[in-house]
């Protein structure tokens, strides 16, 4: 088994543990490369089936290609798709101009909380990776959130030998992170190996491409001529620029992501 085989086997094991452990389970699908790989892994884990709903938190500020790609894949894979938007906040004028962290909190964290409350999810599968940023690097694979979705990151219980946290008080939920140990390069090499369809925005046009996807206003493109999966892999092998360098909310202050994620952000 090579590195990708081992990562794939562990992710499948985690997805199956989640499916066995939680009565109400859902998978967050952001349309980006990571959660699209995760969707593929779920199809593998369950032999072509997707036995739980997929959730897209739509801020209404997403890049239009993302929404088109979402609807196309959902139809092809016959997904049980929940799309949720925090319309109350939008109708009250919420947007990045109110402050990036305030906007992320309202349109992503709060929206997610509404979905959890509405569907009573006990387990939520989320495609975060350790190498994305600091607070994610310290995550557990099964990571508990309280009723308000808060993360007590200073006192996480031990997690060892692929034995995960499956006991918790009613009302809390577990964030399941099947691709926590993958790197950005692993994701692209796996996309190549498996021939997984991803949204076009990642491929360079006129010397620019998206490396990480988010809302249109807060996500910048990088200078790149990588217009195929192979070229992206080659580019990543030689870059020393941070993957999330184009994501504006990370730079709001030194501990922005830690603060957002403590309150329930993905």
């Amino acid at each position, binding site marked *: 088994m090579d590195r990708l085989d081992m990562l794939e086997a562990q992710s499948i*094991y985690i997805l199956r543990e989640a499916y066995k452990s939680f009565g109400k389970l859902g998978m967050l699908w952001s349309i980006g490369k990571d959660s699209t790989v995760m969707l593929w892994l779920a199809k593998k884990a369950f*032999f072509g089936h997707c036995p739980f709903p997929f959730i897209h938190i739509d801020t209404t500020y997403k890049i239009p290609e993302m929404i088109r790609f979402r609807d196309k894949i959902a139809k092809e894979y016959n997904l049980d798709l929940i799309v949720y938007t925090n319309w109350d906040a939008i109708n009250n004028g919420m947007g990045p101009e109110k402050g990036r962290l305030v906007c992320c909190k309202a349109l992503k964290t709060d929206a997610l909380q509404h979905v959890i409350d509405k569907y009573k999810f006990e387990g939520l599968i989320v495609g975060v990776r350790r190498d994305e940023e*600091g607070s994610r690097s310290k995550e557990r694979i099964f990571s508990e959130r309280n009723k308000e979705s808060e993360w007590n990151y200073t006192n996480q219980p031990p997690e060892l*030998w692929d034995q995960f946290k499956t006991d918790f008080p009613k009302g809390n939920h577990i964030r399941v992170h099947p691709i926590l140990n993958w790197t950005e390069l692993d994701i692209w090499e796996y996309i190549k190996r498996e021939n997984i369809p991803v949204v076009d925005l990642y491929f360079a046009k006129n010397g620019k491409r998206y490396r990480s996807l988010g809302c249109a206003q807060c996500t910048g493109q990088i200078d790149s001529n990588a217009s195929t999966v192979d070229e992206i892999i080659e580019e990543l092998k030689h870059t020393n620029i*941070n993957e999330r360098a184009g994501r504006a909310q990370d730079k709001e202050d*030194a501990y922005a992501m830690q603060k957002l994620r403590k309150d329930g952000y993905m």
Partner: protein
Amino acid sequence: MLKFRETLKIVVVGHVDHGKSTVIGRLLYDTKSLPEGAIEKVKRISKETGKPFEYAYLLDAFEEEQKQGITIDTTQIQFHTKKRDYVIIDAPGHVEFLKNMISGAANAEAALLVIDANEGVREQSKRHGYILSLLGIKKVYVLVNKMDLIDYSEEKFLDVKSDMDTFLKSINVFPQKYIPVSAFHGENIALRSEKMPWYKGDTVLDALDIFEKDKDIIDKPLRLPIQDVYKFDNRRIIAGRIESGVLNVGDEIVIYPSKRASKVKSIEYWQEKDKATKVEAGMSVGITLFDEFFYKRGEFITRKDDEAPLVGDTFKANIFWMGEKRLTINKRYKLKLVTQETECEIASINKVIDASTLFSNDDAKEVNTNEVAEVVIKTKDKICFDEFRNNHVTGRFVIVDGYDISGGGIINGLEILDVANKFVKGNIELPITCFDEYYYLIPYNEIKKVAVERKSYKIGDKLPINGDTYYYPDNFDVIDLNNELSALIRDGKLVDLINLNDYKYEGYPVYSSDGFLARVKNQDDFINFKNDFKESKYDLVDFANKWYDPLANKRIVYKAV
């Protein structure tokens, strides 16, 4: 074409402030594995907080960690050499965060143990060494760090090496190398140090590439613990990860503990390219069998020709306890061993070991946070397992206390428990439970008879005649009608153990071996008592109700577990 890339997971452990994070930061820096943003971020934070730049900050992501200068949680981070990829796990050195250290170290295949040359071997250096031994990590290098603080002295290096080597050997850890380094100045990390010409060995980076990955897990007997059974379509697929060995289509298999036999019909797949007739250790697979009897999560699929797993409900184990509450006997815990889950109790605590001094306490009644203990565990249901030395994955388990994983353990073997305490004289033994306690357990709301210790009492030994829930007079006799033995207790001591035929009633109260007062007031009563027992062998309830007063010397006490 993608090249085959091997990954080795290494953990960096050691006492707080001995420089683990600095070693990692330096390795990343020297191998140019740091993204641009990372260095900028650390520089920005250093500026904001007015502290000098530290490599350690690269790993300490949380505000608290950077402020306090200690790693709270583990971080996994990668770097590459020409030979392969590395995942380095940074484990906190502070004793308060031992559970995080263990969470990180449990995933590692090799370890770097960092010791401050100036401070020498400290408490956590030893404790972490011991935990590596418990986790079965045999590939260990010791880095003697901060050599700059002791003028790169060979003598001091040899002192630290000798100290640590003595300790590690005593716990069966045999480091393959001791490397003198200064992580902050980059000496002997990626580049050979010119300041230590006396050191002829490898740099850390070169030494890492020498570690060989374990490959023997495929050669072990097949262990496929069932994770789940799917019936999404007309196939009934058994899903699970192969923990050891190999499996082929057509193999004859046996499922434990039920020992039902069948044959592998197919290995299932979604993508055509994943079609296979043979699967091996490490893979998450789905199979179908020719016989569709009832199989469930937790059961082990093994090959008929492979060695069978152990099956039992009582086993000896070494555990390390990370729970906030102490580990005690009588309390119900959940045990998880691969995909098996069952209720368990600690049947006995044989000894508690201080992991940093190796001092062992044979009389301990409970295990505190961060202690290591040898225990006997009794599970409610029979489970399948292997001894840890034969198979790491199926020989280890975790214990859940309440909602949290609170302990990890490795199995040393099946155990046949001594059911009771004993009176012993020569080769005569009288099993007794008369010193067991009767507790009303909260929150279970049940009365439970509990052996507080398991002991043999010899002639002349002082007996525990007053317990929490029972009291005996200084002088009494214990009669065991089944084994036809009697014990004489005088002044609270065991004075003799004799055949029942030689026993004469002497006016002292008579108790059964389980501590019930017999309604015997004279020798005639005693003869009737004995004869009644012989005649009533098949109706012991009537006999017991007639002859014993179960509450005469007892009370029930509430106990929280």
